[in-house]
């Protein structure tokens, strides 16, 4: 009796599971999401109103497991609230960058010629300008908010996925099934929608995880520079920036927890991305 043939999805799952770091990343992400989104349901704190009389309490003092910050906010509760902002912006901005980049790269690669040349020069020009610089400029022009940061980070981060997708599109457009569709009178956009993007979805998904990690780091940078979302909203970068003012005073609880969570989140997405690359890339699957 022969073993039943494994489906492509099963093979991908198996390859992903063989990557131990990817599993660690996935577990970390689940824990982080639970901490940020379910945590506040269990551990309820006021993250809107300041309590100056309770400022800078030590961990454990007056029922604050991780102490309070310089405005009297409970640090543990603030880590949860801040994590929501960081994760939401990271995920949404990563998704936005992936969608824009995928569409841009697919069109450029599929049509080729002058259109490709023009579209890719736009990408080259965009890559030449540091994303952080654009973010800082944008933050000084408009008051940063969650939607604004999602939009701005998404708009400065789509360039790399556009390049990746263009390469995929260039390779896929000469495949027989794409040629057949065009000969049968199908439109270019139809071919992109039905064949090019679905067949490059592995690359897109892998890149998306890295986009999320990059977006979280960008939010951190901008907030660290004091250009993040104004209070009472919080994010880990802003918490880190605020805590550093007290670094010489030994207020470790204002510095290490947000720093650690940033590292863990970025590592989690990066490890998951690694695992997904194993899962979607045939060469890695065969090697595995």
């Amino acid at each position, binding site marked *: 009796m022969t073993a039943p043939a494994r489906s492509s999805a099963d093979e991908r799952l198996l390859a992903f599971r063989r990557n131990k770091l990817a599993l660690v990343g996935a577990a970390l992400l689940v824990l982080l999401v639970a901490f940020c989104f379910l945590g506040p349901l269990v551990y309820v704190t006021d993250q809107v109103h300041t309590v100056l009389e309770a400022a800078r309490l030590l961990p454990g003092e007056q029922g604050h497991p991780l102490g309070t910050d310089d405005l009297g906010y409970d640090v543990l509760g603030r880590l949860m609230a801040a994590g929501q902002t960081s994760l939401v912006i990271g995920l949404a901005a990563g998704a936005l960058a992936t969608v824009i980049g995928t569409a841009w790269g697919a069109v450029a690669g599929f049509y080729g010629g002058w259109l490709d040349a023009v579209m890719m020069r736009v990408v080259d020009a965009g890559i030449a300008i540091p994303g952080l610089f654009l973010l800082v400029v944008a933050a000084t022009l408009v008051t940063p908010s969650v939607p604004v940061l999602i939009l701005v980070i998404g708009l400065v981060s789509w360039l790399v996925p556009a390049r990746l997708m263009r390469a995929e599109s260039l390779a896929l457009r000469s495949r027989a099934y794409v040629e057949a569709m065009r000969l049968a009178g199908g439109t270019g956009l139809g071919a992109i929608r039905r064949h090019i993007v679905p067949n490059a979805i592995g690359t897109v998904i892998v890149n998306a995880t890295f986009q999320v990690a990059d977006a979280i780091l960008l939010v951190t940078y901008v907030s660290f520079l004091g250009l993040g979302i104004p209070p009472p909203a919080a994010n880990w970068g802003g918490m880190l920036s605020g805590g550093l003012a007290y*670094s010489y005073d030994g207020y470790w609880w204002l510095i*290490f927890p947000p720093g650690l969570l940033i590292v863990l989140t970025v*590592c989690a997405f*990066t490890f998951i991305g*690694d695992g997904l690359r194993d899962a979607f890339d045939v060469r890695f699957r065969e090697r595995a």
Partner: protein
Amino acid sequence: MAVRSRVLVAVLAAAGIVLAACSGGPAGQSGSGPSDSATFALPPNATPNWILPIGIPGHLSGINTAVNRLMWPPLYTYAGDDGSLAFDEKASVANKPVFSDGGKTVTITLKDYTWSTGAKVTARDVEFHFNLIKANKTKWGNYSKGRLPDNVVSFMIVDDKTFTLTLDKVYNTDWFAENQLTQTLRPLPQAAWDKTSADGPVGDFDRDPATAVQVFDFLVERSKQIAEYDKDPLWQVVSGPFRVTEYSPQGQVTLTRNDKYTGPDKATLTTVSLKPFTSADAEYNVLRTGQLDYGYIASSNLGQTSALEQQGYTVEPWQGWAITYIPYNFNNPKVGPIFAQLYVRQAIQHAIDQPSIAKNIWRGSAAPGYGPVPQDEKSPFISDAQKANPYPFDIAKAKALITGHGWTIGADGVATCTSPGAAENQCGAGIAAGTPLRFELLAESGSKETDNTMSELKSSLSQIGVAIDLKQAPLNTVLGNSKPCTPEQAECSWQLSFFGTQGSWYFPAYPSGDRIFTTGATSNLGSYSDPKADELITRSTQSDDSAAMREYGEYLTRNLPVIWLPNPAYQISATKTSLQGVEQDPLVGMSPQRWSRK
């Protein structure tokens, strides 16, 4: 970003933070340069950007004045170096003014000073300054209607060193000497500056109002070329103890001793470098390395006092003769009618917990302030009302004031006007139904204490239905965006602004409010206008009755032309013990000419 590099970046960032957090000990070498020089840290984001001693709007930062007084000293200097405000004989270019004709004539005699060109400083140089501000008062940033030059009927030169001013009426002599002559008039090098173009001839252009405008425009144009200051021959003609040898657009300034100075206040050090910083944290990191002779610490670092003392610094707050506030823009077409309601201003003031902000955010380095004169309980100028604080922190009372005047707090916590009209229990004239109590606040960046104060305001005001949309920018940007305006002007879109990390307004020795609260005054940023206030201010500047100042103070304490806030120390100074002669003047004048090395 590659996978490994991404993880590396995150880990390195964390490691950097850990190292920064763990580095508690003294950090590095002492000594900051040659023994005949000194380095001075400029306030965060407050970079000098104007050299001409006649400021224009957007270039009125106090640091500009502090620097240009070292090159072109004013007629009179008052200082508090010895603990009380007094006439500083040594730094004054003229002998004390003599009032005659019942107080309407002022005779001033200059001391023996020379310009760096070798020419004598004469009464003509003072007349030059007077003529420039008289012909260009609409462009001059510190112009205030009715003040100098408006209140001088004639300027008459008696001889090279003596001139008389005939006043339009009798003024309070302290006010005229301490606020007008000290703040406004000084000799400027007429023989070098009285021209209309760089290559044009020098003449008496200032004496004709039409050509005086051209001279002023020329000087303003040259003053806009910050990168050229050290090379422009105009700015090298000085009478003070220093001249500028470096002045970068980023704010780095180097002052070099004027070896041709002939006054009694000669500089000891050869150079003094003023270093710009974007934040107090950045400055503190440099201070810890010992590279600054005269720096400051944020109140968040007060716990590090003993570490700094071990490093050879003396830490001491520098208290200013100042008040701190947030101006309301009464002329903003959108929210001006709301600010015009006294009950709204009272509610906002009641919602501000000044003692708690001073104690917890400023860690005791700020003092609550409840009115328009510096909150010095021993001052003869302070009113009983200001001492007592008529609007103590009381959220319930604040909320009642809002809800009792036709506002309903919605589910989002923001009050909206549900009873428009001008009756006693309605929102007030000019406020339409559905108008929200939502204001934009532009605050200066770079200070953790200011960030936290703004967060606290936003939080406490949210409890009474007032929403604050906070935006931050460097000090010069905030000042540039907070000008007096009329409702139809585009620049009148600002609503509330804060620029008081080191105090919002520093007074001359006589703390009158004519420049900040009189109708139409240039520094009345929010265009506050109240006939009774104008009348009391006028009385305080014209009468020698000391009660006039207290009456003015009491009225404005109650009438709330601005949001009163705790007044921070000008800075918490950290000074190298090897730097001698450093005294902290409440009028925040700098006297680096008196610094020396031990």
